[in-house]
């Protein structure tokens, strides 16, 4: 995989720290769009964000501690009090609702966006420390991302016009 900063294109890097279905969207949308606009993009996957590099994605959302979340339902918007969020099955239900909305509104799946990122040569770094910490096996992860640490990311960040933490 090429080092960041080889060409003359502008560069963008991002640190991807979250692994829920809703939080998986911003990094992959921005990475694929930036690549489509000619930028060299690097994504550093760390902590819960690292789960987005698993071969088999099983992403869900949690309504707990997410007070701004509201889902359209029968012409209204439904909010979820924390007390209800804590009940068994509520997150599963909310995830199903979100996935149905995604399909209905023509929003890409995370699998599709991740493949688009790979196809457009987005450089991916998997955090080695997180691999050790959460005991992820290399064979459970997609092929392509390089293993690296904070210094690998920082080197890229110093050469990038845009650096995001998501």
């Amino acid at each position, binding site marked *: 995989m090429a080092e960041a900063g080889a060409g003359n294109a502008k560069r963008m890097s991002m640190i991807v720290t979250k692994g829920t279905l809703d939080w998986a969207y911003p990094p992959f949308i921005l990475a694929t769009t930036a690549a*489509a606009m000619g930028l060299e993009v690097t994504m550093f996957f760390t902590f819960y964000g690292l789960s987005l590099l698993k071969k088999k994605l099983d992403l869900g959302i949690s309504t707990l501690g997410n007070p701004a979340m509201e889902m359209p339902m029968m012409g209204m918007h439904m909010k979820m009090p924390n007390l209800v969020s804590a009940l068994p099955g509520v997150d599963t239900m909310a995830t199903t609702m979100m996935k149905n909305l995604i399909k209905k509104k*023509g*929003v*890409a799946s995370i699998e599709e966006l991740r493949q688009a990122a790979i196809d457009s040569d987005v450089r991916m770094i998997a955090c080695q420390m997180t691999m050790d910490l959460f005991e992820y096996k290399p064979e459970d992860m997609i092929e392509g991302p390089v293993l690296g640490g904070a210094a690998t990311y920082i080197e890229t960040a110093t050469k990038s016009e845009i650096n995001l933490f998501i």
Partner: protein
Amino acid sequence: MTDQVLDAKGLNCPLPILRARKALNGMASGATLQVLATDPGSVKDFEAFCRTTGNELLSSSNENGVFSFVIRRTG
């Protein structure tokens, strides 16, 4: 008439842009692509996309909620 037409109707951000990029990649310099989309955000997005990539946005129109963008591959 454009050289190629891309139907991105019903697709949401960022898919119209991603599909357009893919289509443009396979086209010769100077060729034109018409993109049809229903995502209202695509109006601003295709302007920004063309400005950034150096491709020429020849026209942008809206007919009954279907947006049409004609892009000449120059970037």
